[in-house]
């Protein structure tokens, strides 16, 4: 796929890069414009792949920062996961609807505006009608807008696919992100505090007092970010041992 040789050498660099990019999008769009049933195998694959083989955190290595920040307890991890699923799905949908109109030179800015507007609107509506949920979410608003997964999916998928597949892709990646987040938060809270905090239910003590009386102590390191990163590493290790296909060729 050597686009370079097809572009006239006499064009200035900027215009050449833009032509290449536009050609790439036209090719991807032609593929995507073929008709597909709503829940066809291809669309369901968009939901399934990010859960394991194309997981945004463990395979695409995106969104690590929030995976460290909000996984000290289980409840914020769940709230954050739901928010990311909603924002990724709907920003994918919006950008996909607009994809043929966005000027390529400002497309990153346009994507950022769509994400930020969506998150702010959701936060404002929650503050008015679901105040308690919005109080939990307000802390994360900044973290969601800067989450690389959302921008990453917009660039890699929504810009060149039809709205419904883009929506499914957003949901799939959000779910993949959510699963990892919940696993990490589960381990960190269980071993770091001996409890599990579930939304609407509250804090449940899991490790009984009897264990502490016998000398068991909470692992303080689990509450700190480095352990979160090590936990992600362990999950990647387990995932690759079970799926040899993920191991890169030397």
């Amino acid at each position, binding site marked *: 796929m050597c686009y370079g040789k097809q572009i006239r050498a006499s064009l200035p660099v900027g215009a050449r890069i*833009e032509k290449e990019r536009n050609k790439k999008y036209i090719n991807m769009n032609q593929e995507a414009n073929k008709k597909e049933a709503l829940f066809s195998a291809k669309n369901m694959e968009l939901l399934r792949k990010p859960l394991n083989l194309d997981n945004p955190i463990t395979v695409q290595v995106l969104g690590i920062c929030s995976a460290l*920040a*909000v996984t*000290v*307890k289980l409840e*914020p991890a769940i709230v954050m996961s739901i928010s990311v699923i909603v924002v990724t799905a709907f920003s994918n949908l919006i950008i996909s609807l607009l994809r043929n*109109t*966005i*000027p*390529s*030179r*400002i497309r990153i*800015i*346009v994507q950022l*505006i769509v994400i930020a*507007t969506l998150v*702010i*609107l959701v936060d*404002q*509506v929650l*503050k*008015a*009608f679901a*105040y308690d949920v919005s109080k939990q979410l*307000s*802390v994360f608003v*900044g973290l969601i807008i800067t989450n690389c997964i959302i921008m990453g999916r917009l660039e890699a998928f929504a810009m060149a696919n039809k709205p419904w597949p883009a929506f499914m892709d957003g949901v799939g990646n959000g779910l993949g992100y959510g699963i990892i987040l919940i696993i990490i938060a589960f381990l960190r*809270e269980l071993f770091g505090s001996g409890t599990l905090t579930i939304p609407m239910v509250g804090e449940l003590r899991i490790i009984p007092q009897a264990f502490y009386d016998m000398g068991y102590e909470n692992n*303080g390191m689990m*509450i*700190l970010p480095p352990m979160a990163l090590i936990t992600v590493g362990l999950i990647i290790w387990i995932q690759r041992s079970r799926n040899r296909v993920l191991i890169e060729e030397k």
Partner: protein
Amino acid sequence: MSNKYIFTYATIMIVIVAALLSTAATVLKPFQEANARAAKMVEILKSFGVESSREQADELFNRYIVEEIAISSGGEVMSLYQKGKKVRGGDTRPFELDMKKELKKQLAGEPATFPLYKAQKEGKIFYVIPLYGKGLWGPIWGYIALKDDLKTVSGVTFGHKGETPGLGAEIEKLPFQEQFKNKVIWDAKGNFTPIDVVKGGVNNLAAGQQLHSVDGISGGTLTSNGVDAMLDNVLRIYKNYIVALRKK
């Protein structure tokens, strides 16, 4: 894609987004403010042990809060309101005073007034003082309720905007707040001791010191320091008024 297209596209997008966000903010503002006021009442009630939902907040607030007072930093009573109606003093209801703005005014050397709530529950009197300060990532706030001896803490509540979940954010949770019950802000010798948030275990301190200290949060040192500073700075403002009231 010509430059003209790019500029037009960008301009139209900005106009649409700005219109969308400002419409949403304006239309939703009354609902948001009502929620915020109710949440504030819930926090004040919670500090002296009255559990309330946001729907019941207004009714319970009027039932339990007998006086709203605004004091100057010198300890002078500037206005007195009861059940939302002015009894004497200025035009601003103490409930509407913004601690953040008043503290800023005071720092700038301008005259500032601070709210204080007198509550009555089951025959006992409580005094609720609002708190406002700086956490690690953003503002922190809360309410401290004193028993009628104006010395013993009946309870506290804390809130924050952006502290780290599981670390600094724990100031919002019951275990941290429970520690403050029955601590004192005046020690046996009569010294002013706004509660200290200490690192390393309250149980390791001398018995006299334990009475006005609580444990900080492991891993949330800077937020804990913020709480310590907030109690120190704000209670100092109310000190003169409290001293005068205790003498009576």
